[in-house]
């Protein structure tokens, strides 16, 4: 009977049968219990959202369901029968597929090649049956309205299209239950709408979708059922019809919903950071940041909005001196264009990097050594050529206390901390040297609501003390809420100035994709080469 349920491919299955049941799932890692007594029932044909702070254990739970981790305790039932997954292969065989937050696509292959990679249809045992693959992809794409054409190169696709390829890849392998891990993180509002249309199409055809997110308004829009996870365990299952975003957030954190609003202007007339004609070239000589100029005054937050991969990362690295660039950068009146990274940091630039694992932390080193990182020439970390252990340790204690870094102690390795706590440590570290300018790249990405509010508070407080902040974020609410002025970056150029007081996320989203900007603005940029959408996300593969 259960097997029969799997084979009812197109007929809409009754939405009362559970597709996935988790009972008493517990998973422990060294130093932390990631999941504790998780209970979850996902009905067939539902979009079931799982919400929770980062570090609440959503990702671990999904890894368990996808066979990447084995639970220490508990039972997983798929379509009513208990299963035990050893590898993702087992999960795929049971009809479960996962669309990862960071796309796992090879840019230089076509859509078709990416989709069949690893499960190529054979012709005569040796050759790959491209015709069959193309037929099947076409079929699936049409059946679910995904609109994926098999023969384009992935590098020519935008982020939304890449995501549809990922979804198709999973469907191609026969998945009837899809796990989507933070699928909207890299999308602009318009793309989110398209994705949600696709998801509704999928569930109409009887598929089940498990949707992981911490963007509550999106969850409320798309989900048929919501389960809230807090501190590793399921705390509530709610119907999106009976709940508000505020109530959901309270369930997630057990406290009030923070807001990024900063309306009182603290902007002064002293320019802290001036950038003039900054151009960054890629290895092939193509400009990835082109002729960018701006000023940030003391007490001002300048937000840069843009779809990821439009030159933000390169801009930041150029300002930090990690990447060669043309043009001039002036810090507090001094031309720092020729300075090395360390000297720029000493000169008063604080840096919250986009990818904290790659650029912000030594994961295998204790917290107090991480306090020294980037500040290894300054007190209280060093005395002359010597590391001042006592000074660094005492100051790490202070950061842990003042920034509420939740850790058993400062001798714990950084990798033992949750993302939010790692980020709070970084923010604390960068703030403690009293910087003139702070480059904050996605300061609250992958961070839970509680930590997000804390980080926003710290940024606001520092701004009030006269800090100049360059804020780069994919979270449009954060950008609009925190920024005193906003610029939109598209294909490496600043294409628009936006007033954060009046702009809506939708308008900003349009400007980011170039939809509403004057055509004259984009035509020259369009000939520069293929869009680099999503490549930054592909590089930042922090999921193991």
């Amino acid at each position, binding site marked *: 009977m259960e097997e029969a349920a799997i084979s009812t491919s197109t007929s809409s299955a009754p939405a009362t049968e559970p597709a996935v049941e988790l009972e008493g799932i517990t998973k*422990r890692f060294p130093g*932390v219990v990631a999941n504790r007594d998780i209970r979850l029932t996902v009905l067939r044909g539902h979009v079931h959202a799982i919400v929770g702070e980062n570090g609440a254990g959503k990702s671990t739970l999904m890894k368990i369901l996808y066979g990447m981790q084995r639970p220490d305790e508990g039972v997983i039932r798929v379509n009513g029968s208990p299963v035990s997954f050893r590898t993702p292969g087992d999960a795929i065989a049971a009809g479960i597929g996962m669309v990862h937050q960071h796309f796992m696509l090879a840019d230089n292959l076509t859509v078709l090649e990416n989709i069949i990679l690893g499960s190529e249809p054979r012709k005569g045992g040796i050759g790959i049956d491209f015709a069959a693959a193309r037929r099947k992809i076409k079929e699936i794409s049409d059946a679910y309205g995904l609109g994926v054409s098999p023969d384009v190169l992935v590098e020519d696709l935008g982020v939304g299209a890449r995501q549809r390829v990922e979804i198709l890849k999973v469907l191609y392998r026969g998945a009837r239950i899809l796990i989507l891990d933070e699928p909207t993180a890299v999308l602009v509002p318009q793309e989110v709408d398209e994705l949600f249309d696709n998801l509704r199409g999928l569930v109409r055809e009887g598929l089940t979708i498990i949707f992981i997110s911490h963007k509550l308004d999106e969850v409320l829009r798309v989900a048929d059922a919501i389960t809230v996870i807090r501190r590793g365990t399921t705390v509530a299952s709610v119907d999106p019809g009976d709940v508000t975003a505020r109530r959901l957030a309270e369930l997630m954190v057990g406290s009030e919903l923070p807001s990024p609003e900063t309306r009182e202007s603290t902007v002064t007339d002293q320019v802290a950071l001036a950038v003039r004609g900054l151009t960054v070239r890629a290895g092939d000589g193509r400009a990835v940041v082109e002729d960018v100029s701006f000023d940030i005054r003391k007490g001002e937050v300048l937000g840069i909005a843009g779809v990821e991969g439009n030159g933000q990362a390169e801009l930041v690295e150029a300002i930090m001196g990690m990447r060669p660039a043309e043009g001039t950068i002036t810090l507090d009146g001094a031309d720092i264009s020729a300075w090395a990274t*360390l000297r720029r940091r000493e000169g008063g630039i604080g840096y919250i990097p986009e990818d904290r694992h790659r650029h912000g932390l030594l994961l295998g080193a204790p917290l107090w050594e991480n306090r020294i990182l980037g500040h*290894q020439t300054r007190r209280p970390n060093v005395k002359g050529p*010597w*590391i001042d252990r006592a000074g660094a340790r005492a100051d790490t204690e202070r950061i842990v206390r003042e920034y509420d870094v*939740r850790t058993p102690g400062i001798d714990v390795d950084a990798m033992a901390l949750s993302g939010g706590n790692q980020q709070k440590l970084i923010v604390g570290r960068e703030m403690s040297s009293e910087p003139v300018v702070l480059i904050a790249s996605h300061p609250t990405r992958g961070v839970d609501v509680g930590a997000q509010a804390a980080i926003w508070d710290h940024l606001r407080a520092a701004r009030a003390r006269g800090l100049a902040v360059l804020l780069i974020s994919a979270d449009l609410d954060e950008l609009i809420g925190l920024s005193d002025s906003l610029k939109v970056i598209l294909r490496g150029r600043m294409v628009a100035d936006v007033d954060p007081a009046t702009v809506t996320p939708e308008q900003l989203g349009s400007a980011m994709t170039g939809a509403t900007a004057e055509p004259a603005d984009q035509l020259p940029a369009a000939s520069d080469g293929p869009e680099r959408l999503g490549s930054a996300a592909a590089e930042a593969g922090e999921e193991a």
Partner: protein
Amino acid sequence: MSSSFTDRLLGRVRLGGVLALAAPVLAVVFAGVVTSIILLLNGNQPFQTLGLLLDFSATPSIQVLILNTATTYYISALAVAIGFRMNLFNIGVDGQYRLAVLVAAAVGGAVTLPGPLHVGVIMLVAVLVGGLWASIAAVLKTARGVSEVISTIMLNAIATGFGAWLLTPGRLAVLNGNNVGTKPIGPSGHFPGIALVSGTQAKVFGMIIVAAVLGVAYHVVLNRTRFGFDLRATGRSETAAVASGINVKKMVLYTMILSGAVAGLVGLPQLLGASYSYSLDFPAGLGFTGIAIALMGRNNPIGIAVGALLWSFLDNSNDILDFNGIPKEIVIIMQGTIVLSVIIAYELVHRYRAVAEQRRVSRQLSTAAPTEPQGAAV
């Protein structure tokens, strides 16, 4: 679980408390079992074999030999370990020390200076030549991106050829009977030995003190200085190092040269304490032994000392086995087994620690509420 195998292999992940002891003990036991099996397969008694080795090594003259060889091994392993801590695989310690000791011996033989100064000059020359030779690989890596593994291996071969060319009469060598070697260093250039072991005329190399000082310096520089922090940070995460303002290319250059400079000293205990001349029969291959010992000692100065002593013990006491009808090559198998055992044992202990910690946490959670922020834990 979340640390990489290389990190654990090169000792960048630490073990605490009893576990730090358990790993080496486990390794010795494991190596003992494997060697015993091999001995038994060859029809020899494991305990008898070990007894022979231990008895023989108790002879005072052998003890001096063990200490002397271990001194050399220790310096070599330190040189390798400096690179390891930064993910630099200096396979070229061998070429670096052979070239360094050759030139240092020639300079030492050519000049006569007051005692300590003479020794100092020889050491300085050795350090400079070792560092210079290593800097070739460093420059290749920083300027052209050449893997230091490839370049140092090739530089080893070049050092062999270059050394042979230098070591001909008319260049740096003189004919000495049947042997070709550098002009012997005068008495003022000898490093006085220490009569550490009673019951024998043989003296322990005075360079053992230099080796010990190097070990302390290695620890202090790596763990207590800014340079050491930059070095370790670069080894842990090059991307984070770059973002923090560390000039990674400069660090590669400095570390490689430092490693080569220490490598330059590897041949000096032998040169200044026994042979006083570099000739064709000067010990070779010490650089490769150093790699094995650095791995075995997990880049820890004490661990390396233990490894060097163990290796030296096996190398110097094996002659007795032949007299008893046991092939002495068995010690080479032992040495290989020990290195592998150490790697396996540490891996096992790391995994055990992960499981134990999970249990501990779950126990804590069942008895107490989830951990709240804890500000002042030292």
